[in-house]
């Protein structure tokens, strides 16, 4: 049977991609950003940890989805997804390969479980999906894991609540458990942590709030489920709202144990956060 072995969360700052694509990892600005991923890169290579499939919860940044079509929750079921051209040309990273049978299984299970997913067969994938892959896997010729993309609208309000995201994660876990193939599955939550990219308040960072959020992923998940949009907006900046995607990951885990944490300010306009959680189901 398929099983979820771990949850991984990370910010998806475009600058991380720039740092990798332009070979700047050793520069003083970038060094502390990348240092915190070294543990994870070594961990994820070990045969017992290496995922066959990553369920990657991410948001599109007006790349695949403009205002013409705004799904709240969507799942990629197509064979593969190409890197998007976000205005500066596509990132030079491998094509993202799906496990379509598994993705379709999850899609069906979620819909029967009353999560009305939009199905995506064609989708360019932007930094929201490719930067986390680069951060964890570096620069391989092909990504070492298959990827099932789960897209969450965090751009146009109202976006889904944190609790709804958590419950989607629980439903994803039920879907995974009922897939007959033997698969080591990881679920990744991406985006965050505190950042605001717009208006006179841009540049807002709230390290204290972020660290408490990281603590409570294992310490008090019930508190995190109840955090309202307005609190994310006031405390973590308008783009800090992306943290609801970490709750999809959290909902899919049982009694998670923290294995590794990385927090660094700044990465561009953003507080970079990264955590690895063992699933103890």
């Amino acid at each position, binding site marked *: 049977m398929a099983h979820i072995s771990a949850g991984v969360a990370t910010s998806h700052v*475009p*600058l991380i991609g720039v740092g990798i694509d332009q070979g700047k990892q050793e520069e003083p600005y970038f060094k502390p950003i990348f240092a915190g991923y070294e543990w994870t890169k070594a961990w994820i290579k070990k045969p017992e940890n290496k995922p066959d499939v990553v369920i990657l919860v991410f948001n599109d*940044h*007006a*790349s695949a989805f*403009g*205002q*013409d079509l705004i799904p709240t929750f969507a799942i990629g079921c197509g064979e593969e997804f190409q890197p*998007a*051209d*976000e*205005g*500066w*040309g596509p990132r030079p990273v491998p094509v993202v390969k799906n496990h379509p049978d598994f993705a379709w299984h999850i899609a069906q299970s979620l819909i029967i479980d009353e999560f009305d997913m939009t199905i995506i067969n064609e989708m360019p994938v932007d930094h929201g999906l490719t930067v986390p892959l680069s951060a964890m896997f570096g620069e391989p010729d092909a990504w070492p894991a298959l990827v099932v993309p789960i897209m969450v609208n965090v*751009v*146009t*309000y*109202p976006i889904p609540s944190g609790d709804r995201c958590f419950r989607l994660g629980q439903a994803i876990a039920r879907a995974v458990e009922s897939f007959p193939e033997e698969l080591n599955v990881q679920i990744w939550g991406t985006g965050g942590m*505190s950042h*605001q*990219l*717009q*208006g*006179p*308040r*841009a*540049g*807002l*960072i*709230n*390290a204290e*709030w972020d660290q408490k959020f990281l603590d409570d992923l294992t310490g008090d998940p019930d508190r995190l489920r109840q955090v309202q*949009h*307005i609190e994310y*907006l*006031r*405390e973590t900046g*308008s*783009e800090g709202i992306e943290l609801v995607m970490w709750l999809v990951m959290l909902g899919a885990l049982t009694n998670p144990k923290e294995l590794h944490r990385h927090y660094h*300010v*700044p990465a*561009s*306009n953003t*507080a970079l956060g990264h955590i690895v959680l063992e699933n103890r189901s």
Partner: protein
Amino acid sequence: MGKDLQNYKDAFEDIPGTRVFTTERARQGYWLNQFCMTLMKPENRERWLADEKAYLAESKMSDEQQEALLARDYNRLLDLGGNIYYLAKVFSTDGLSFVQAVSTMTGMNVDDYKAMMDAGGRSPDGVRSIKEGN
């Protein structure tokens, strides 16, 4: 949900220096944002950079939005329904990074903005709520 929805949205307007992308803003900014999406193709970026006004003539966005776009006045564009992830296509086409573009909305020059970020970013203290002044 009627009254709750209004309360939900009213709270957004209480955050200083912030434009939450509500459905009202999304509707107002529709053609502006859809224009930005066209810049994801290199041939469109070339046409735009070669003659911005001519390229804008094909868009249904308002005159105000066109003026703000030509002036790269990002705060004004937010006020007119623009969303930062759409507008990113414009400043990326200009060759600006997120830090360079975002700093223009803060009233700080880019070096001061970078120095603020390097020192830990903008504190939330005092910019959580207009009403509460905290």
